[in-house]
């Protein structure tokens, strides 16, 4: 029994090490090939459209609801203190520093990352990736680089948009429901926010975009076993991306706390 436990543990550790090595290798290749010409602008624009532009509706809905929910939850406590006007600063700081980047990244990971894994996984099982190689086209340059660049560019843009919509959600609750004046809400919001809050949020979203692109493409490239394999890889891609986003968020939040106290 104990032996079986250690065999299983050893196998899991080896699988984890293999994953880390493979992902590091793909990251290095992707960064190198991103900088190396020729640049596939057409593919980057196409991917940016799919990953970014088409994600605006879902990001709008989620960010607006997050703004509503956060304002209402804050109101529950702040009303007891008689400090309703500070809900605006709470909403602004929480959304710009934390909720905007993380929620947007999770939405995009579920929508775009899963689609990348399923698409590349299907290409893998139907030998399209092998076909690319035999036609002297590097699959990393051709498939991963446009997704990596587009997500790295589009996620900060989507996050900035989610920040604005989230603050708007808080504004609607405070102004229409809690009786705070519009000018007061805007004044408190802009007083509470500093450039560093915006910068740290957008920097984190850039890292999250890279994580989504790399993990989803890595899982897609490593699909084995047909349709079932594509399904499993897609699920694994979403789970791993979520975990890595939360872990990276924790690391960078701690880092920024000490760098920009």
């Amino acid at each position, binding site marked *: 029994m104990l032996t079986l436990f250690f065999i299983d543990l050893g196998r899991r550790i080896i699988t984890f090490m293999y994953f880390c090595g493979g992902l590091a290798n793909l990251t290095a290749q992707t960064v190198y090939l991103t900088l190396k010409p020729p640049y596939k602008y057409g593919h980057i624009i196409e991917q940016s459209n799919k990953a970014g532009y088409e994600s605006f509706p879902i990001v709008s809905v989620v960010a607006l609801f997050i703004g509503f929910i956060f304002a209402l939850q804050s109101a529950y406590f702040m009303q007891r203190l008689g400090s309703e006007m500070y809900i605006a600063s709470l909403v602004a700081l929480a959304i710009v520093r934390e909720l905007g980047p993380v929620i947007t990244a999770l939405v995009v990971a579920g929508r775009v990352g899963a689609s990348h894994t399923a698409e590349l996984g299907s290409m893998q099982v139907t030998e399209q990736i092998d076909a690319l190689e035999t036609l002297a*086209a*590097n699959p990393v340059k051709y498939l991963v680089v446009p997704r990596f660049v587009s997500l790295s560019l589009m996620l900060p843009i989507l996050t900035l948009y989610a920040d604005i919509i989230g603050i708007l959600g808080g504004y609607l609750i405070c102004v229409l429901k809690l009786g705070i004046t519009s000018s007061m809400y805007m004044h408190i919001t802009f007083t509470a926010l500093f450039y560093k809050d915006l910068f740290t949020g957008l920097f984190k979203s850039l890292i999250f975009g890279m994580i989504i692109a790399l993990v989803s493409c890595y899982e897609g490239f490593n699909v084995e076993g047909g349709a079932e394999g594509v399904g499993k890889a897609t699920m694994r891609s979403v789970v791993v991306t979520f975990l890595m986003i939360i872990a990276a968020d924790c690391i960078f939040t701690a880092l920024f706390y000490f760098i920009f106290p």
Partner: protein
Amino acid sequence: MIEIENLTKRFGTNLVLDRLNLKVPTGQTCVIIGRSGCGKSVLLKHIVGLLKPDRGRVLVNGKEVAGLKELELNALRSKISMVFQGGALFDSMNVAENVGFGLFEHTRISQKEILERVEESLSLVDLGGIGNLMPSELSGGMKKRVALARAICIKPEIILYDEPTTGVDPITADSINRLIRSLHDKLKVTSFVVTHDMRSAYHIADQIAMLYKGKIILEGTPEQIQHTQDPVVHQFINGLSKGPITEAIDTFKEA
């Protein structure tokens, strides 16, 4: 010229290729026969550098494929085409973009000229005028022929075929066989064909080699193979359910 020397490949505990040796002279058509899952496609993938040998080497035109750097490998791949078992057409591109992919990516030929070459290649496989269709709109046989058109569009010196006639109707299979033969006769293309369709093998081959238990157990002209006394090859080419191949499997199951 394709030279394979002591090629060994293992996946986990499964020894797929075991010190395999084979030579295919320039301009010849070599057909590899063998049961499904015996390692024929693995052998093909070594020739084009998609897999690296555990031991041994594969030389194409005197160059060891596994030792080539990226640029050299790409230069070699521009002279080799591969026709995949399921076609492996790119879903996101139409037929013309698929067929002209190699030319669009790696040459400075004008788009008009590329589209003319694409149409010419499609006409060779009797599919002229379908450039605007998407792969999802094609039947299995048409996909195979489009894959063949993609392979010949770059005018390669070597073409590797992975079961080119499997899953197509007999008439289409015959037209594919004729095309492979005419590429050999007219353009002196070196062909390496993996199949278990014996009719096709006899039609197109200059040389037939049988892969069994990771090794080439017999090679010869179609006539020599047809008249062989080797019991394994005899069972395979005649499609017999009883013989040394199936006995070995039964013994293994009983053990």
